[in-house]
Every structure is written in C-alpha cells, then in structure tokens.
C-alpha cells in the first residue's frame, strides 16, 4: 500500500466563490453530503490510494479548513514520517500570488519529501478514485505530465483537451473560462467534450523546474503557465476516468451534485468504492424519528430530531424538524432548525439557521435560495 507519490491539494488557483457559502470558508471547506466537506473526497481518495504525504496549499480564510483537518488524524495522516502539511500562503503585497509562488516559498517541503512523483489535485473535486492506477499509467507511458479528464456527451466549460493523439498524447488544451459570455465563435463548434478533472501527475523534479522557471518569469498558474504553455515541449498524456467525478464551481452545480447523492448507485460508488470517505469525527447520537416523522428519498446525518415531513433533501447533523414542518428539495446544514408548520423548498440553509413557526421559504430548482449562516427567519 505504499506508492511512490506525494499528494498536493491546490486551493490557491481556483478559489471559486459560492455566494454566501464561501464568505467564511474556502471552497474546499464548504459542507457537502450531510457530514463531509468538499476536500474530504480528494483527501480520502489520496489516503486510500496509499499516499501518505499530503501538502495542502491554501490562501487566507483558512481557519475553518484547519479546524476541520486538525492534525490529520481522522484521515490517518497523523504520522511521525510524512503525514499532513498545511501551507497558508499569502499573495505578495502587490497582489502577485499563485500556486507556483507558494510552491517556491516552500521548496524545502518538496525537497525533504522522499517520493518521486506528485499527484496534484484541485480542491473542488467530488470523487472517490484510485490515484495509484493513474500513477501506473503515468510511469508506464514515461509521461512528463498526466492530465486526468472526463468525456462528456456535449460541450463543457472549464479547461478542456481539444486535441489528443491516437496514443493518448495531449496536443492542445484550452481554458474556456478565460472567454467571457457569450461563448460563441468558430472555437465553440469544435469538440469541447473532454474536460480536465483538475488532477495531474508529474515528477517532483519537473514540478520544481516548472515552478522556478515560471516564477522567475512572473507566472504563477500551474495549468495556464506550467502546463498549457509547455504542451509542445513536454510529453503530456491524458488519462480518461469514467467513474463519478464532478467539479463544484457554482451554487447551481453545488446543489445538483448534492442531490446526485440521492441516487443509490452514486451514493454507493462515491462512499464505498474503492475506499471509504473520511471526515472529521463528531460525536452525536443516532437520528431520532418521532411520531409524526415522514421522511422519504433523503439523506440524513446523525443527531437530527425529526417530527415533520422531509422529501428529496439533504440534512446535516443536529438539524431539528418540528411537527408539521415540511422540507422539500433542500440542503439543510448543521444545527439548523425548522419550526412547526414552516415550509422550505428548493433552498440551501447554511449552519445554524432558524426558520420560525409557519414561515415559508421557496426557491427554484435551478436557482436555489441560499440563506447565510446563523440567519433567523
């Protein structure tokens, strides 16, 4: 179970904003799926793949993330050798910053790590995959960089592979996000269906080279500056992953991917195969279903007390649903309380929200209502 790679989770380049949910926390620390935070999925995947040395590079607002990860114990990463390392980075005073800069500021860490390869993952990925297979693929092909991608049935946004040779070599890639709306023009008539998953394998020595050269030129971004600009010079190979893997970059898809978990097949493959997803351990009793509870098609965390009706929803820990209350198509985070006869539908309620007696909150499925932490309605 030892593999010759360390993991780096890069929370610097793509700190996407999810409206109210990211005011107090980095995206990677946003709660997801009843009892997890987004970062748990990539972190657990790495641990289950045998990666024992993981560095996390994060910019500001990192307190809730650090509280969550603590000593790494819950991921079995509290180790005497290797383990979990969190690097809190700041852009320089004149605003320059980015992954490569932070890497160069912490080269010590890379040099001291004994593993030969680095698996780089972004912090917005929901998946449960075996990085060891990707590493095998990388070393067998003798690749400089391996890019993991997913094939879709239609065009997608984000970073896409636009040209792939028959033997799987990446000839060209584009970052479609850099083009503003409307996304029209000849470019968009091409095949833009191979979306980069935000997971890369590279040798440690090449990573250091790229980082130093880029920083010396004033560039900081791994994908744009390190990868895309060097496609012609390097052997970059693609690895196609067909399992469940999504990237969260908007409230809309955050809502949708949470709801995906209500599909029993996705629930099973995401939480059990190939390994378990770990998260910060929290004590709490089982969930209590009272006399009037009627819960259907929902995922419920422990320590809830439910005496109302819940349908097609995601309830985090210690949610209270009183008699006569109705929750439908919603995501209800920790310690939120829905009082008697209150109704919420198509909403995302952050932690410790209270919807008082008889109140109604109704959003749209494709535009769920978001209510910030601690709000009383």
């Amino acid at each position, binding site marked *: 179970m030892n593999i010759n790679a360390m993991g780096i989770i890069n929370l610097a380049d793509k700190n996407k904003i999810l409206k109210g949910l990211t005011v107090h926390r980095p995206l990677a620390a946003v709660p997801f*799926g*009843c*009892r997890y935070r987004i970062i748990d999925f990539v972190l657990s995947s790495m641990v289950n793949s045998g990666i024992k040395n993981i560095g996390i590079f994060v910019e500001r607002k990192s307190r809730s993330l650090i509280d969550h990860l603590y000593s790494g114990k819950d991921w079995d990463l509290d180790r005497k050798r290797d383990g979990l390392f969190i690097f809190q980075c700041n852009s320089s005073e004149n605003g320059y910053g980015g992954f490569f800069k932070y890497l160069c500021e912490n080269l010590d860490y890379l040099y001291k790590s004994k593993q030969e390869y680095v698996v780089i993952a972004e912090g917005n990925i929901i998946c449960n995959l075996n990085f060891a297979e990707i590493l095998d693929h990388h070393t067998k092909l003798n690749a400089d960089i391996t890019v993991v991608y997913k094939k879709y049935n239609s065009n997608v946004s984000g970073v896409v592979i636009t040209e792939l040779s028959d033997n799987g070599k990446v000839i060209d890639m584009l970052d479609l996000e850099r083009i503003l709306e409307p996304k029209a023009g000849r470019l968009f008539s091409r095949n833009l269906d191979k979306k980069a998953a935000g997971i890369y394998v590279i040798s440690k020595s090449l990573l250091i080279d790229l980082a130093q050269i880029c920083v010396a030129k004033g560039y900081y971004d791994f994908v744009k500056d390190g990868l895309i600009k060097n496609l012609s010079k390097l052997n970059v190979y693609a690895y196609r992953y067909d399992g469940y893997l999504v990237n969260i970059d908007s409230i809309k898809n955050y809502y949708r991917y949470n709801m995906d978990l*209500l599909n*029993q097949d996705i*629930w099973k493959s995401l*939480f*059990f195969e190939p390994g*378990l*997803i*770990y*998260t910060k*351990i*929290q*004590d709490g*009793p*089982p*969930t*209590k*279903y*009272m*006399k*009037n*509870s*009627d*819960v*259907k*098609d*929902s*995922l*419920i*965390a*422990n*320590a809830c*007390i439910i005496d109302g*009706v819940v349908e097609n929803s*995601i309830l985090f820990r210690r949610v209270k649903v009183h008699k006569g209350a109705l929750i439908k198509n919603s995501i209800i985070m920790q310690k939120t309380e829905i009082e008697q006869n209150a109704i919420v539908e198509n909403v995302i309620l952050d932690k410790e929200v209270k919807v008082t007696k008889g109140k109604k909150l109704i959003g749209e499925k494709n535009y769920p209502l978001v209510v910030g932490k601690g709000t009383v309605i």
Partner: protein
Amino acid sequence: MVKKECIAMILAGGQGSRLGILTQKLAKPAVPFGGKYRIIDFVLSNCQNSGIDTVGVLTQYQPLTLNSYIGIGSAWDLDRKNGGVFLLPPYVKKKGGEWYKGTANAIFQNIEFIDSYAPEYLLILSGDHIYKMDYSKMLDFHKSKGADVTIAVIRVPWSEASRFGILNVDDEDRIYEFEEKPKKPKSNLASMGIYVFNWKLLKAYLQEDEQDANSSHDFGKDINPKMLKDNCKMYAYQFEGYWKDVGTVESLWQANMDLLEDAPQLDLYDTDWPIYSVNPNQPPQYLSPKAKVSRSLISEGCVVNGTVVHSVIFSGVYIGEDTVIIDSIIMPNARIGKDVKINKAIICEGVEVADGCCITSENSNIRCEQYHVDETGICVIGSNVELSNALKECVLSSREREFKSRDFETLKAMLLRLGGLPT
C-alpha cells in the same frame, strides 16, 4: 506517577450469561446499545464528565472487542498524559497466573496498579449499567459524611424491592443493614453496585478477605457485610434519574425501547452530559422513496427501503423493500432482505436475513443454535448468521404463516396501535 485523589475501577469481566447468545463472543459491556453505543460507553462517559481521568477496566471474558474498542480511551477523551484508561486482564505473576475469582479478588489482584496512583478514594463501577451520573457529587457526599464507604442507591417501586439488594439506613443515611432480596423489604433503597471506598481501608479488607478460604471474594456478599459488622461508617448516596441494569435480554430490550419515548428519561441529545462512543466511519443514512419510519432511532450508514416502527437501528444496516420492522433492535451491519417481517426481536451484528423471512416470538419450531426466544417473547438472533431461504422455512411456524398472510389492512391496524404511521 502523579498522585490522584480518586480513581475508578470498572468491573467488566463478567460473562453476562443471562444475555445468552448476545454475549457468546462478546463481553457484556461491549454489547451494542441505543443505535450507536456499547453499554460501557455510559460508565466511561460518566467518568469523563465527572472529571475522573484515571480508570482501570477489569476484563476477563472475551475481551478482544472490548480491548480494541476502548484502546487508550480517545473516544471518551480519556487518553491523558497523567492517567487515562487502563485495560487490566488477569495475568501471570512470578508465582503463576490466576483468573479473577470475584469482584473483590479482581481489585485485590490489581492493588499494585491502584497503589501507583496513591489514591485517597477508590470508585468501583459496573460496566453494564445504563445511566448518567455525576460521580463527583457522590464523592463530595462521601467526604462531607466522613464516610469509610458510600454506596449509591436508587428508590425502586416497593413492589419490586424484593428483587434487589436492599439497604436499610438511618435518618443520617448511615447504613445499618443489608438485605439481599428480602421477602419483606424494610426500605425501597436498592444498591446500584456503585461504591466509593477509602482506599487504605479497603486494601486492608481485601488482603484479609484473600486469606479467607470460605469467601467468594465479592463486594456485595463478603466485603461490605464484613465492614458493616466491623462498624465501619457506611453511607447510602441516593441517586435520582434513569438507571437500568441491562443484565437480561428483557431489560436490555426495554432500555432500548425507553429511548424511543417522546421525552425519554435518558436524554442522549443533551450536550452538557454527552455520551461518547467510538464513531464508525459511515456515510449518512439513506431513506428511499418507499421508506416509512417513525418512533425510531436510526444511525449512519443505514439504507432503509421498508417500514420501521418503534425500533432501534444501528449503523450500516440495510433494510429491503416491503420489509416491516416493529419493536425491534437491529445491531450494526445486519442485512435485512425484502419482504421480511420482524417483530419484537434483537438481531445481532452482521446477521443476514434473506428475503421473505419472518422473525417473531411465536416461532417455536426453530432449530438453530443462534436463535433464542426468551421468556418474555423477545427473539434473539446471534451474530454473523445467515438466515438463508432454507432456514427461513423453519423460521416460519404456522402462526407466522398466518401473520404473513394477513392483508395489509391488518398490518396497518397493528402499526397504528404501535404509534401510527403518518399515512
């Protein structure tokens, strides 16, 4: 080592034979309870919440699960630098090994361990009671009375008093008499099996008792009566609140059912006195579009496709479609197939019940080592059994066939009686 004012010793070595197949491979304190816990969680959490940070656990019978469950006590925040939890099995000394012969002998064999903390007071606890109690208050009582021994007592209904060890006390709560299961009880103060001793005094009594060939080396039968005879200052400390000795299948079942009340006496949701336990790593529970659940506790990792009424479901349980579970306890990682009926049963860890099985107390023709019905009609199915289709035949008695053939209306009426489904 740092001196401690008071340390606790938990008696967790008993076989718990009255729990039958529940304790076949498991010490009694390790039996699952309340949808998420094991019985010993309550006494360990009480220690932590009472500020007692040095705890010895005396194990003897099938300790493997208990050992790996307790570990160094992290789950109860008892992994402390000075003190913590210590597992104390019997061991071989220079002169050979000896199993624990009784509760008092178990403490006697660990005098050295206790002495290494030089405690003023020793708190003796049982590993198989369900309750929340602040031992620091009992200790304060002990000190304020200047007592040699304090025994915790609880008032039981007069009608039941003759089933308990009864303590007769004077106006000052000083004990002047013990009566074991008296026919005509003079008081209804029953001993809870929780003692505070002045350690130095107890040590002397233990050493004396060890020499006595006629002694059964038991606190209740030997040490305490001897002390009373010697006119030691023994006091009764009255506890108020929920307390249950879950030594029988019936009491274990009942204590689980007690949690399903609207406002149970034992509140697991009170964050001021949390009951800690080892947290399994399981995804959230999933209730499918066909699930119906009411008056139940359900834990993480469960998948519910059927109907669950007035039951306690532990983590990782799968419940198939059209299955109905009533008044039952389903322990971790059991897998209940489709169209199964379970009524007033305890299904142990990892049992697999095939589609269509029917498990109720009325089965008298079952021939299976891992199946047992107690005198109150609770069915118990032992750990890691597969109730396959072959077995299912023998599980179905004639009455059960009848039950199974009842139409949906009958079932609904039965469910409504039990608290009603919101249909």
